[in-house]
C-alpha cells in the first residue's frame, strides 16, 4: 500500500489518510463497547497509536481493515480490563420506551433502535464488538475469526448465540 510506504519512509502526515478512512468505523465499534463517549475516544486514540507503532509489521496477506479491527478489538478488550470498566447489564425495570404512544413509523423505528441499543448494553463488550462488526461492517465469519482470534467454528457458534440473545432481549423489551 503506498500510504504505508510513505509512513514507513517517515511521512507521519500520511497517517491522516488512514485515520480519515477508518476513524469513524473504529470509533463506532469502540463506542458500542463502552458507555462513555470520552472512554470511546481515548480507546480509539490508543488504537490508532498502536496501528502507527506497528504499521511496519503489517503483512499484506491479510486485509488492512481486518488488521486494524484486530488491533481495535485487542486494544479495547485490554483497555477495558486495565481501566476496570465493569460490565453491568442494565436491569429490565429501566427498559421503558421513551416514544411510547407515538404511532407513526418514524417513532416506531426510533423505539426499535432504542430497544436494540438497550439489548446491546446487556451483552458483554467483546460480544457487542463482534455483533456490530458483523452487522454494521458486514464482515464475514472468516474475517471476524481473524479479528477476534477465535476459530471460524467458534465464531459461528458465538454469533448464533449473540444473535439469539439479542432477539430475546429485544422481544422482551417490546413486550414491556
Amino acid at each position, binding site marked *: 500500500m503506498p500510504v504505508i510506504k510513505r509512513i514507513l519512509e517517515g511521512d507521519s502526515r500520511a497517517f491522516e489518510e488512514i485515520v480519515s478512512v477508518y476513524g469513524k468505523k473504529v470509533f463506532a465499534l469502540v463506542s458500542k463497547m463502552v458507555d462513555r463517549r470520552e472512554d470511546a*475516544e481515548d480507546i480509539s486514540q490508543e488504537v490508532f497509536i498502536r496501528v*502507527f507503532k506497528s504499521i511496519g509489521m503489517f503483512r499484506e496477506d491479510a486485509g488492512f481493515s481486518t488488521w486494524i479491527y484486530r488491533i481495535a478489538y485487542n486494544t479495547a478488550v485490554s483497555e477495558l480490563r486495565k481501566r476496570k470498566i465493569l460490565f453491568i447489564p442494565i436491569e429490565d425495570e429501566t427498559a421503558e420506551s421513551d416514544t411510547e404512544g407515538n404511532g407513526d413509523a418514524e417513532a416506531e423505528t426510533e423505539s426499535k433502535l432504542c430497544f436494540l441499543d438497550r439489548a446491546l448494553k446487556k451483552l458483554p463488550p467483546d460480544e457487542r464488538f463482534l455483533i456490530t462488526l458483523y452487522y454494521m461492517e458486514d464482515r464475514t465469519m472468516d474475517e471476524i475469526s481473524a479479528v477476534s482470534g477465535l476459530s471460524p467454528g467458534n465464531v459461528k457458534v458465538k454469533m448464533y448465540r449473540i444473535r439469539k440473545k439479542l432477539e430475546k432481549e429485544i422481544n422482551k423489551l417490546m413486550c414491556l
Partner: protein
Amino acid sequence: MKNNEHISDDGLRTMFGQMPVEELPAGFMDKLMMRIDGEVRRKAARRRWMPVLQTAAAVAGLIIIPAAVMFFIDPDFFSSLDFSMPALNIKLTWFPVSVGFFALCLLFADDWLRRHYFSKR
C-alpha cells in the same frame, strides 16, 4: 453453512443499518496527530541514544564479565589488588582493561562508520 456465508437473518440487520452513524469527537484528528508527532520524536530520540547505550552496555559487560570470572576463580583476587596510586598493578589489570578499551574503540568505529555510511545514502 459455509464460513464465508452470513447467518441468515431478518430484522436485526435492518435495525443495525438504521442505527445513527457515530461522528468522530471534535478535535479527534488534531489530538491524535499531536500524539503521533510525540511518538515520532520519541522514536527519533531512541534511535539517537540507542547506539550509545548499547555501546556502553557492551563495554560494561566486557569489563564486568572478566572481573566476575576472576572473582569466581579467586574470591581474594580483588582484595589482593593494590589500586593505590601511583603504584597500579598493571600486570594484573592490563589484560581486561586493554580488551575493554579495544572493544570500545571497535564499537565507536563501527558506530561512526554506520552513521557516515547511512548519512551518505
